Structure formats: C-alpha cells, structure tokens
C-alpha cells in the first residue's frame, strides 16, 4: 500500500539532501514560493540532512541518489525522489493535490 496523506492534514514538507547546507535549501525556497502563490503559506517547508529527518516530516523529497536512505530514515513519510534540485516534478503533483483537496500519494 503506497504511503499517502490527506491534503487537509499536510503541515510539514521536508526537502532532504546529504549535508543539508546547499541544494535542499535552494529547493525548499522554490517550494515555499510555489505554496505561497497557491495560498498554502501555512504549510511549513524545511530542509534537512536525510539522516536527521524527524517524525513531523509528513512529505519528504530527496534526490534519487538518497531516496533509499530517505525511505529507511522516514518510514512513516510520503517520499518522492527527483533528479534535479531546481526542477522537481513532485512539486506540481503536491500542489495540484492540495488544490483539489485530494490525498498526496507516493509515486
């Protein structure tokens, strides 16, 4: 059964990378802007090293090279993987689901 979270209960999205000091921070910034534009500014977006993920992370996005580690560090979370930090297809998927009030379902 794929992990999922209902749109209305999404409170925190985390972009994870290895060191948590560069790529994930830049990628988080873009998602914050997209959420704000779509009217979901109350959803918290943070960045984190994959190894430091905490249980309040409901949705975790990480580079495909780290996705297995993200899955094992955050077994509770809806996880998405991507290839390019500045072009993350899951952003649109998440925002469309939020707008439609649907569950956000893992790929």
């Amino acid at each position, binding site marked *: 059964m794929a992990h999922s979270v209902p749109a209305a209960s999404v409170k925190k999205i985390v972009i994870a990378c290895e*060191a948590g*000091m*560069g790529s994930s*921070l830049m990628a988080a910034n873009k998602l914050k802007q997209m959420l704000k534009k779509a009217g979901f500014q109350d959803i918290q977006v943070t960045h984190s090293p994959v190894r430091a993920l905490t249980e309040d992370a409901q949705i975790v996005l990480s580079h495909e090279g*780290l996705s297995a580690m993200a899955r094992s560090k955050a077994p509770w979370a809806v996880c998405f993987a991507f290839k390019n930090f*500045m072009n993350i297809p899951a952003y649109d998927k998440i925002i469309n689901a939020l707008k439609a009030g649907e569950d956000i379902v893992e790929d």
Partner: protein
Amino acid sequence: MAIITAALVRLNAVAESKEDAIKMAGDLLVQAGRVAPAYVEGMLARERTMSTYMGNGVAIPHGEFENRADIFETGISVVQIPAGIVWEDEERAYLVIGIAAKADEHITVLSNLAEVVEEEENVALLVQTTDPQVIIERLDRPVEEV
C-alpha cells in the same frame, strides 16, 4: 562576519577541470579563514558521489555532513569562469559557488542564488561582470520572507 566578501570572489578564472574549479572555490574559503583545508577534500568527495550542478551554468560545491567540523565560520565563495568548465554530461558551469555553512545564516544568499539560477539572463549578468561588488550585491541583498 559577512557571508560573502570581495576576498571570496574570484573573477575571470580559467579552470582545467571540474576538480580544479572546486579547488579554487574551496581555496577561497580556506584563505578567508572560513574552513580548514580538509574541507576542500570533503567538497571533492561530495562531488564524486553526487553532482552539485543546479542548472543554467551554476554549480554549488560543498562538503559532506561529516565535514561540518572543518567549518570555522559560514562563508560562500564565487568563482567566475567566463569560458565555463564541463560539469556533467553536456552541462558547463560558469559560476561555481563554494558553500560552507555551520547553520542557516546563509539562507539569504542561497535564496538569492535560487532566484538567479531560475533565469539564464541573471546568470549571464554575473558571469560577464568585471566588478565583484555586482556579484556580492546580487547575492547578499535582502530577500522577502517566504
């Protein structure tokens, strides 16, 4: 201390390889007293496991999680390479941004950088400038809280 200063900007550099460019970015951080020399090794190691190429000619080499101990002060260096250097596949990097961050003090610079990377013209402006202040002001200007 300012995250980025003129001493952390190197204009009109010529790199022989990606590794060479990463060393230049790392050496600026070392010379400015922001990191220990070992941090540069961490930057090279990180790049071997995963590319830090962000798109539109910008790469952001930085160390790995373990290398945080080699950071004295948060700092960001900029190496401008007008001819570019092959980074991955067909992609060339023209701006190589070295990052050493202890916490999140550099969030303003990276937010600005994220904006710059979005538009090719923005990157071109910083690749062509002959004034380090143009780069510093573009990357260190106040950002609207999002």
